[in-house]
């Protein structure tokens, strides 16, 4: 069987975090918790004669994303009607953009697992309105139009991704950028982001494009990774069995972990796009674009490079820290408080992430943990000064994570300071060797691996607070004495 590669492009639909809807002054609310149909008006209900008016903030947020993704901003932008009949949009059409999107021809650079980078081309980003929410009950469907008309930015990549993993890396980075820009919370459980990959496969080395399928409405990056991986395998198996992939729209069955056909496309969708007559065109001149560009925050790549240059971090560590804006901010706060950057990075990406993972806390919520950035900085400093050992520091991270507090005070209160007094350590070594004559004899008879075991016993005797270097020196000396 020849080796296959996937050809994947992603459409990402991101709700924009404006206060009001795209074309009317209704509030944008959390559609997963708000009472149904409490934020609607004649415009988003599609009442005859109601006139939409474009939300300026939504346009600016779209421009921010476009510029952050290295897109060109055409001087002329226009809304269009996308006609279809479905109860999630009461007008019978969705206001979207078609021929003249807000942003075109950009790119996003991703870090691949093998250490290489890849530039994924962005075809376009356009503004549109979100649809309502349907709930299916016995013989009926219920329609909640709170979400209808919420600003949505559709970001379309070229089919430059070659595996499910690359699709996942791209999506994670894109979501991080949206969060940095303050245009989307990235909280996929609230439905504010949906991802739709289109996927085909081909033998490695071929440049053909085979029939592709599209998976609709994936609502987590984990689903994107799993659904894409499943679909790639399914298509390869089909070609290998001499079959054909049929062009279709698929859904992802989360429970069974399989893609299922929703609709077979026999002809191209016919949405009869035409310019939206109710909305005058947008002219976006260089002055406006520059204004938005000046307001852009430092983005993940720039921050990663700065962390490498300013703090001497590895590219990998820096990338992990900047992947989540809140983590990067936490790290910088700890460094500003006097923490050694590499030490802070190590404890943050090691112990702190482990504790957060174990309680299922999202990294973006790091600001809420009890271990504060100054406390972590103080802890790192205590280790650097030799006041406490790494082992004690790890325990302290756990204590501070659970209950907060001041590391220096805890060290004093519980007598956790590192013991490096040679007399005290020497006594502990002697006690341990006396208590284990058998092991000592075997060591002296040539079983050298027991040295580690004896070392561990001494360290335990001293509750992990001993200066390991001093203990090792004393242990070697006393064993040599006993050799006679």
């Amino acid at each position, binding site marked *: 069987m020849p080796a296959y590669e996937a050809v994947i492009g992603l459409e990402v639909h991101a709700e924009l975090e404006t206060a009001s809807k795209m074309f009317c002054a209704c509030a944008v609310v959390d559609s997963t918790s708000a009472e149904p149909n*409490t934020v609607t008006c004649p415009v988003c209900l599609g009442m005859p004669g109601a006139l939409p*008016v474009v939300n300026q903030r939504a346009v600016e947020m779209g421009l921010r994303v476009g510029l952050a993704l290295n897109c060109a901003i055409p001087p002329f932008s226009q809304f269009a009607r996308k006609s279809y009949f479905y109860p999630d949009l009461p007008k019978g059409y969705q206001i979207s953009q078609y021929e003249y999107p807000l942003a075109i021809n950009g790119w996003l650079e991703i870090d691949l697992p093998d250490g290489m980078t890849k530039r994924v081309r962005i075809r376009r980003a356009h503004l549109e309105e979100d649809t309502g929410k349907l709930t299916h009950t016995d013989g009926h469907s219920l329609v909640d139009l709170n979400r209808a008309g919420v600003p949505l930015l559709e970001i379309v990549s070229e089919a430059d991704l070659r595996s499910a993993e690359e699709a996942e890396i791209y999506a994670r980075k894109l979501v991080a950028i949206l969060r940095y820009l303050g245009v989307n919370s990235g909280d996929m459980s609230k439905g504010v982001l949906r991802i739709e990959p289109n996927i085909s496969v081909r033998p490695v080395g071929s440049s053909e494009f085979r029939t592709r399928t599209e998976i609709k409405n994936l609502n987590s990056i984990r689903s994107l990774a799993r659904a894409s991986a499943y679909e790639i395998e399914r298509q390869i198996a089909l070609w290998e069995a001499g079959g054909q992939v049929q062009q279709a729209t698929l859904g992802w069955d989360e429970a069974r972990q399989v893609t299922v056909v929703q609709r077979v496309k026999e002809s191209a969708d016919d949405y009869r796009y035409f310019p939206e007559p109710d909305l*005058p065109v947008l002219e976006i001149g260089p002055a406006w674009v520059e204004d938005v560009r000046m307001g852009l925050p430092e983005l993940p790549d720039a921050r990663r490079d700065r962390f490498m240059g300013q703090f001497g971090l590895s590219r990998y560590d820096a990338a992990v820290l900047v992947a989540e804006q809140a983590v990067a901010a936490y790290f910088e706060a700890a460094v500003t408080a006097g923490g050694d950057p590499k030490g802070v990075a190590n404890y943050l990406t090691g112990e702190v992430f482990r504790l957060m993972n174990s309680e299922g806390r999202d990294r973006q919520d790091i600001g809420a943990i009890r271990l504060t950035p100054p406390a972590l900085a103080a802890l790192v400093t205590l280790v650097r000064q030799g006041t406490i050992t790494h082992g004690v520091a790890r325990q302290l991270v756990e204590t501070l994570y659970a209950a907060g507090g001041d590391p220096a005070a805890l060290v004093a209160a519980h007598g956790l300071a590192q013991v490096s007094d040679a007399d005290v350590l020497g006594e502990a070594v002697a006690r341990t060797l006396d208590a284990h004559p058998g092991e000592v004899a075997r060591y002296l008879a040539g079983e050298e691996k027991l040295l580690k075991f004896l070392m561990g016993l001494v360290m335990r005797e001293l509750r992990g607070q001993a200066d390991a270097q001093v203990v090792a020196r004393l242990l070697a000396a006393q064993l040599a004495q006993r050799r006679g």
Partner: protein
Amino acid sequence: MTFDRAMVAHIAELAKLQLSDEESERFAAQLSDILAYAERLQALDTEAIPPTASVLPLRNVLRPDVVEPSLPRGEALANAPDSADGQFRVDAILDSEGGAA
């Protein structure tokens, strides 16, 4: 351009209309007439005229991102043929039938 019955059937499907054979026949003829009339515009030389999306002399009509009160739910649902639990109620539909975004 003339409209044949297959084209009428396609348009009818997009518009979710069910037409009888007799109606399809009649509309094919009528739509052909309408198109023929509009096609007279094709005779004009538009080479030097830029594409026109809107004849209104308006640009960048924008509103500030400010929330105003929405309709009370009772009013929003008042014209609905059917509603339940504060929601519009329609005949059952399958997710697979459409939906865009």
